[in-house]
């Protein structure tokens, strides 16, 4: 095999995610009454980026073969917090932004500590912390409201040079600052190793506990970025249980669509981003096709079902049935 074949083999999941997204987005745009205008791109980007942050957060944890069912609630909590503190002068706003990110990070770290030091199974541990985070959000915002520095909000959700959605740029920056260093660092590789074969990783002297802690913590941070972005998007904070659990579930769908293996060790946060955009596009399809409103939820489900079944095509190529069982 030549070098690029190895690269392709490494990136397969991510590329499939990209392909699913491109395909769906192309169909969407082709049928959009306005076509691909700057506005339409901005709308799609803003909506997608929000889920993308949560999906990246989920991917971090899923790579270690864990799962974080509290990401949506961290998003909600940081959203409520941001609607209090990301206001005022540039100095205050900056402090507020840092405060929100710190809060997200702490939430993630708590999850990590429970899973690693507490040795709890991630699914239940994060269901429980999710409840706690939502309770805190509700304390912060018993009813929707609050405010955010609107200049900053407009800058982050607007466009650069009138065409490039700034949310995409923000996302790129987050990828460059958080994901790439993680992926290229020893700790990031340890996270993959822990997800792929924990016992083997331990025997090889890989710092699996530290790696997992970092993964959960960064997941909290990324969910916090998502919460911040949600605040910029909506100008307010709201402790909405349904939307919290909705983001959690869609983040899982997004990572799967983006080629991240739920069994750990495979995939990348970049794939999760494509997955998030693809997941969002399933909802948009209903907008461009004239579907009876009562049929919409059903259709969305079917589109999702089809999208996730695409991966099953690979089964046809499986010639050794043992490959069914990883």
């Amino acid at each position, binding site marked *: 095999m030549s070098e690029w074949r190895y690269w392709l083999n490494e990136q397969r999941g991510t590329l499939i995610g990209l392909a699913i997204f491109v395909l769906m987005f192309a169909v969407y745009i082709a049928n959009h009454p306005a076509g691909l205008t700057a506005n339409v791109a901005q709308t799609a980007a803003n909506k997608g980026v929000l889920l993308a942050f949560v999906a990246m957060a989920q991917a971090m944890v899923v790579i270690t073969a864990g799962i974080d069912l509290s990401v949506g609630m961290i998003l909600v909590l940081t959203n409520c917090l941001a609607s209090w503190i990301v206001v005022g002068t540039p100095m205050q706003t900056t402090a507020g932004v840092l405060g929100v990110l710190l809060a997200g990070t702490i939430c993630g770290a708590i999850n990590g500590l429970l899973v690693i030091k507490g040795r709890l199974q991630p699914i239940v541990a994060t269901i429980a912390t999710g409840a706690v985070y939502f309770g805190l959000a509700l304390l912060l915002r018993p009813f929707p409201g609050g405010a955010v520095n609107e200049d900053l909000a407009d800058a982050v959700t607007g466009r650069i040079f009138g065409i490039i959605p700034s949310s995409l740029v923000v996302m790129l920056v987050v990828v460059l600052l958080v994901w790439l260093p993680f992926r290229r660092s020893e700790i990031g590789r340890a996270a993959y190793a822990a997800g792929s074969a924990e016992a083997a990783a331990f025997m090889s002297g890989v710092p699996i506990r530290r790696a997992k802690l970092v993964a959960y913590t960064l997941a909290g941070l990324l969910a916090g970025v998502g919460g911040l972005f949600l605040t910029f998007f909506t100008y307010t904070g709201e402790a909405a249980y349904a939307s919290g659990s909705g983001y959690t579930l869609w983040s899982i769908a997004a990572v799967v669509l983006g080629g991240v293996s739920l069994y750990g060790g495979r995939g990348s946060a970049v794939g999760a981003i494509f997955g998030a955009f693809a997941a969002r596009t399933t909802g948009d399809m209903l907008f461009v096709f004239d579907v009876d409103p009562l049929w919409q939820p059903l259709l969305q489900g079917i589109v999702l079902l089809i999208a*996730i079944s695409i991966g099953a095509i690979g089964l046809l190529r499986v010639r050794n049935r043992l490959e069914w069982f990883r």
Partner: protein
Amino acid sequence: MTEATENRLSLRARLPGPIRRADPAVLTSFGCILLLLFLGSLYSSNFLSPEYLLQQLKVASFLGVIAAGMMLVILLGHIDLSVPWVMTMGAMMACAAAGFGSTVIAIPFGILCGMLFGLLNGFGVAYLRIPSMIVTLATNVVAQGLMVLYTGGFSPQDSAPQAMRWLATGYIIPGVPNAILVWASVSVAMVFLLTRTTFGRSVYGIGNSERAAYLSGINTRRIVMVAFAVSGALSAFGGVLLAGYASKAAQAMGDAYLLPSIAAVVLGGTSILGGRGSYLGTVAGVILITLLQSILSVMQMPEAGRQIVYGIVIIAMLLLYGRNPASR
């Protein structure tokens, strides 16, 4: 096989027989139930009254039936996120069958609908090899879509027929609501299924290593599909009971059952990774969760506080007995 599990095994192997068989998680979770009741009784002695306790068991039985199915799926190392709308669908379709057809077929029809969705889940998981978490997520959306369509498209019949009312709230044994008897029967069936049948053995086997089970000649795909179908049927059955209790079916009535059913199974000592756990633990987990929710509700704690306490109590209990063994 990690060092970790091997250690745990040897630890258990050292215990004398009867204690070894009684899962420590089960014992502890029953202990926690008593503790919870004790704490509640400090607030109001009515928490210990027979009416209240029977009321809790009755309400717990809906969750109990659903958790039984969830446990089966979790034992396989999978998860069923389609509970909320499969449950709602079971309830709505049972009521619809009663409304449009006859009462006789109502309950079986509701359960059948749930089972069909379970089969769909199972097909996706076992034959298409899609992770259960995502298949069931998608089928949940599909089930929701169908129910929205049904409610909006037909003049819906959603009153529970008398038979469903009776099943959930009537009495064969005076003082003991039928729902509890239903749950007890489901439980007996589950214990039998899990401990005495080839199906149960296969479930545990697949949960530990599907590859090994397959190479032992077990038709693992069929077992997985059947387990999901049972889970779907039991979800729908839970919905039927709940509709009987509420005297009608309604949209989104299952939303409150997903996370508690998972939590109940895990609090009962079943490993979320599959292959290990006893049904008695699930019963304990169901009672634990139901009591906790009820006591917090009656204590009038504001929603925020309830969520926080709920979360912290679950974490505390898991830290008490739900921990994975130390790795060294």
